[in-house]
């Protein structure tokens, strides 16, 4: 659900309904403690373009409840990339295992570029 706030003060909600389509995506696991798995083989190319055929998906999106949400618990600052570290050192400790040292403890997300 999206809450849109216009400069006029008008508030509008955009909800999913039976006109929406759904399918599983490439993000196969996500947990605040466990981590996150992404299987790029499952990425539905072109899903964000008009004319996309959702042939292997379901025809019905989850219908909204039709009521406005209570509270606005998402209304703090957004979480953003504030700065980026490149490694200060790296070491291949055994074949196929590399340890990267970024020089500072910080709340991190990796940004990987890889070739198969």
């Amino acid at each position, binding site marked *: 659900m999206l809450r849109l706030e216009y400069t006029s003060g008008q508030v509008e909600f955009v909800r999913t309904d039976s006109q929406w389509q759904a399918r599983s995506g490439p993000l196969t696991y996500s947990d605040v403690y466990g981590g996150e798995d992404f299987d790029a083989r499952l990425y539905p190319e072109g899903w964000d373009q008009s004319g996309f055929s959702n042939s292997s998906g379901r025809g019905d999106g989850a219908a909204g409840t039709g009521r406005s949400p209570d509270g606005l618990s998402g209304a703090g600052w957004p979480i953003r990339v504030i700065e980026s570290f490149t490694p200060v050192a790296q070491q291949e400790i055994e074949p196929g295992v590399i340890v990267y040292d970024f020089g500072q403890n910080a709340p*991190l997300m990796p940004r990987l570029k890889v070739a198969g």
Partner: protein
Amino acid sequence: MKGDVVKIIPAELRKPSGEIDDPLCGGKSFWTYTLAGKEDETWTPKFFYRGARYLQVELRPAETNGPAPRVISMVADVVHAAAPATGTFQTSNELFNRIFTLVRWAQRGNMMSVLTDCPHREKLGWLEQDYLNGPALRYNFDLNPLFGKIVNDINDAQQPDGLVRALRRNTRCSVGMAICSFVSRRSGAVRSSRLHGNNSCSPAILIWRAVTTTA
């Protein structure tokens, strides 16, 4: 090639042998990326972050004894609440400056959608962090929107009889009231947040007062 897997394990420490040392989480939190099989592929996670200095990358080929995938580059993005920095601290004493830098990183490492206790094993928004660390945080960052949101969280979790859930009524419950008090004082707003309409602090505090005086 298609089906190659890159496993990335975060850690704050490493052993003398070079491998990561993750005594707090046992190496059990990690990211994996499975390749689609393009010439090169770029990926960053959408949700999971962790406090870490080291990332251990394990490269696993799709086929046994096949060629392993190759890392072209590895960057670490530092993620936290996009609160503008409003304060800093500098003296002629390098020790004090380094303590400030240390504290600043601890603050940044826990400034998320709630103020967490640590960026790895718990990531919990205990109210004492808002209360005990709140004043120091607010010298360094503009946190009015985040504290407005935290007050809203407290109001959302408060039970009809006034009890703030998961906190002991007569000790830590007062924390919610203290947070509301200093949010109002620091922001100059009577309501805790412009966003939250009728969900201002005042009704929650009044109910809580009623509970504690009749208990």
